[in-house]
């Protein structure tokens, strides 16, 4: 391995100062899922089904 990289690694502090492990995960309750579905019904575009049919992109990259 090049010497240079070793020197670099020693002086490479992270920009995100502290990284904490996430707290334990719990699933959503049924009531939460119901509320989520209500919200989705509210924010879905009125023309969503028609729009998704017409959504055509050029290939990228």
């Amino acid at each position: 391995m090049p010497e240079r990289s070793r020197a670099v690694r020693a002086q490479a502090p992270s920009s995100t100062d502290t990284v904490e492990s996430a707290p334990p995960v719990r699933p959503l309750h049924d009531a939460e899922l119901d509320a989520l579905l209500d919200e989705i019904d509210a924010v879905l575009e009125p023309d969503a089904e028609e729009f998704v049919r017409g959504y055509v992109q050029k290939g990228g990259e």
Partner: protein
Amino acid sequence: MAVPKVCGIETEFGIAARGADLGPMAASSMLVLAYAGGLEQVGWDFASERPGADVRGFDVSDHAYAPIEPHLVNTVLTNGARFYVDHAHPEYSSPECRDAMEVVTWDRAGEEVVRSAMSRAASALPVGSELVVYKNNTDGKGNSYGCHENYLLDRGIPFASVVRGATPHLVTRQVFCGAGKVGSEAGSSVEFQISQRSDFIEEEVGLETTIRRPIVNTRDEPHADPTLWRRLHVILGDANMSETATLLKVGTTAIVLAMIEDGALPDGVELEDPVTAIRIISADPTLTATVRLARGGRISALDLQRRILVAARSWAARYGLESVGGDGVGTCVLDAWDAVLESLGGDQSLAARTVDWVAKRRIIDAHCARHGHHPTSPSARAIDLQYHDLRPDRGLAPRAGLLPVADPGAVARAVASPPRSTRAFLRGSVIARWPAAVLSCNWDGMVVALDGDRTERIVLDDPLAWNEECSAGILAGCATTEDLVRSVGARRPGDR
């Protein structure tokens, strides 16, 4: 020892104009210009780009690639990122980051850049019309656009070892970083699959990114000193809305690449037919399908991931986690990897808080059950698309119960500020300080204006050398770009 896994993500976004008659190129240009309107537009320096250079030793630039169009809309931001138009898509390329948590932070910052650009563009369009941007990878009709990752590799490791070592992970990691998709664009009858991109991956190894897309891309364009480093360009990933999924996608891949460099990957996980395996795994949300191993026998994606994780724990104990950013972020990735494999193999409702395809599938299934729709109905496809909608008032992913991992304050700062840990710090700082004097940029250099119509290219071919620690003192001592050129030129990385 593994070299530092400097890394970043390039995201091509889907775009549509609602209520206005704008094609994708015009819409993309308008979006980027709307954001750049308040900034000096920094051009891109194509002098060191070699998209046709192949690690296998040839160069197809002369006969296979269209000329690059330098007139396209381009800007380089004070956070070190590039925000520009790539053909018919807006693209945000994150600054170089030192670890996976930084990538999450600057990837999220990119979403905020796009939201801001959409909002500014709307004010320039007739009332009732707007540009809508989607952070996904397909239009559902056979057209795909990419979310590419980049990782710094030691030039001394044979590329064949990288391909052999990385492929089993790249094929199976979709179980936790797939973004999910209704239906298939490759003629399969699957109702819901794990990955957006799996339908489009057709080769094991290759140079292409737009046709016959490969699992491992061979573009040999390190954007750094080519005698020391390679850049692995990973093109098969999905763009993620879940921050945990981005953390895992980049964090686990950085670990696997460091393990390759340290010779610490487990034996016997090579797949007989990786391209077929990608599709089999993507088409099976039950995660019970098995794929054939090269040395015989079959294995599920989850079991293969478990084997890599066990080896990663042993590697970390022996070599430490410095190469992937240190104990804090490295342990966070290993623990999240453990947790996601456990929940995917057990209670999938837990994974709905962290894994995009599980979160998306749950709301599509529940929505279809509530309204009596078929799982591939236009209504299901509409939710699939709107999951990735970046408008704050319309996007479904932020409403799907996903758990954040990045510090929101850090994300807000990252919209304007570069990572402190890489050369992006110098790039972003110079653009912030002398916006009119930066004539063009590339990842490994920038051209600045000096007195009397002279220009100079500053070479930054060490991805880590011009971090805050190295650059802050130099910048503080510079009053002009003349000083900058003199100071940076006098302190080339090799002199350290």
